[in-house]
């Protein structure tokens, strides 16, 4: 996959990703029009299918709302690359199928508007604009297995069927 970088700083919290006032819905389509609006009013108008959010440390801190990764997915974003992720956001992203990559080097090198390509299978990130290539921190084995079977929802479905 490849897309254009939307770059933000540290501690992008779930309140700015999707403010509580819109959390009376949990459907991607309802959330997407308000994604990041308190941080960057122009984001939703500019973002194209496949684009990539690049951010600093502690991305997704704050509220446990799963509406946050859903809003990002709904906006058409293909992946989030950050220096680190807040832990509930990390779990939620895996659970809803939003690809997240932890890679401080790629974050430092990328500028707003760069083109990146990502190979999710081996965690490789290429900065097509500047020419660098980076490897994201791999998921721990057990999490990788959950992702492989299609996420926690599918994992539980299979367990219930085998009961």
């Amino acid at each position: 996959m490849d897309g254009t970088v939307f770059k933000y700083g540290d501690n992008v919290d779930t309140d700015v990703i999707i403010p509580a006032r819109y959390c009376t819905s949990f459907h991607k389509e309802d959330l997407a029009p308000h994604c990041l609006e308190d941080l960057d009013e122009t984001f939703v108008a500019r973002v194209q299918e496949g684009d990539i959010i690049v951010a600093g440390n502690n991305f997704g801190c704050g509220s446990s709302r799963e509406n946050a990764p859903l809003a990002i997915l709904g906006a058409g974003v293909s992946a989030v690359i950050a220096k680190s992720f807040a832990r509930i956001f990390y779990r939620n992203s895996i659970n809803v199928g939003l690809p997240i990559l932890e890679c401080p080097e790629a974050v430092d090198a990328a500028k707003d508007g760069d083109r990146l390509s990502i190979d999710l299978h081996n965690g490789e990130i290429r900065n097509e604009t500047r020419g660098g290539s980076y490897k994201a921190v791999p998921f721990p084995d057990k999490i990788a297995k959950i992702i492989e079977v299609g996420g926690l929802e599918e994992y539980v479905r299979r367990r219930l069927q085998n009961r």
Partner: protein
Amino acid sequence: MICRDHQIKELETILGQTIAQKILALHAGRAAVAVDELVFAKVDMILGTDVTVPLSVEVFRRMGADRIFDPKKTVLVNDHFVPAKDMKAAELSKTMRLFAEEMGIDNYYEVGRSGICHVLLPDEGLVKPGDLIVGADSHTCTYGALGAFSTGIGSTDMAAAWAIGELWFRVPGTIKIEVNGQLPKWVGGKDLALHIIGHLGVEGALYKAMEFTGPTIRNLSMDGRLTLCNMAIEAGAKTGIVAPDEVTRQFMSKFPELSYTPQVADSDAEYVEEHHFDVSDLPLQVAKPYLPSNAVPVHEVMGQQVHQVVLGSCTNGHLSDFQLAADAMKGQKVNPKTRLIVIPSTKDVYLELIRSGLAEYFTEAGAVIGPPTCGPCIGGHIGVLAEQEVGLYTTNRNFVGRNGHPTSLVFLAGPAVAGATAVAGEIAHPDEI
């Protein structure tokens, strides 16, 4: 298996375990667990609220689940957008109500008998020392005050926990926070929390557990401990824990029918970091916008005009918090240029406000008392800030747009500063109004 048993033997002989490790090990059916290891562990209680339950219900059904592994281990609380702030919020609560009926969940809390989850659950005897608790609300870490391992999850995680009764956890390393010294007058759990988070930063404890210990913590009331553990997430922590002791035992004695097994750390437990604080001279703390870690002594922000003071939330929603704020107000009225919104956190706290005479005092002073709800804490309803308005809240987060318009500013503080500020109309110290 031989290999795993061997590993465990090794773990037991090499490493002492922290409280977090012990609770996770017990619930994973293991003798010991190593930091960063991923384990599946059985949960004792699953908390959901009106904002997070409806999505979980949808996912639960997609999983093909038709019953909750143990309805007694689930609690559903109406608190965020209730009494329903609009039709969409009403639908959320309705979905939760119907699900509770269908699944036979007795721990369903309806408006009027409900309250903010993190104040309600300990008071209802639904959380105990040694428990493994998960909740689809980030401040679920609050119950660490009772010596539980308690942490926030999302809606899909909650659906999975309902279906199979267990979840995966990465065993966190534990940061030991040792606190010494007697807290000065007016200074309490909230100031301690803001001070520690200010020191560690909002990601200082990312993926870690925080264990609060030392003489100050041993002397801290259960209300103060709940406030402290509530804010562990604001340093990025997975949970905040206080080892169960006499204060815990006293608190739990309200529920003689409950049995529990307290867990304490081994004397040779390994900590990933240690921080020591002496709080004998700790000034009252205020966190400036837009991060809870922007903590400064109150004197650095005194004089800042405030349009709205909010007293309450899961962080400072106990009777002792309202009493402290009232003491700081010293019988005076709310400043004509300021609004004071008082939110009793639960039905029981509401009754205590009435019976203690505080409800009458606040009302006569010019405050408005709202129903138990998260309301203004989440910028939901009952006191949302307008463009450029400034608030001083006893809540736990002051992110951009959290409490209303994205240009509004919220300062976080404890009840003493909140009371003084309501009277002065600007950020104030209770001894200087």
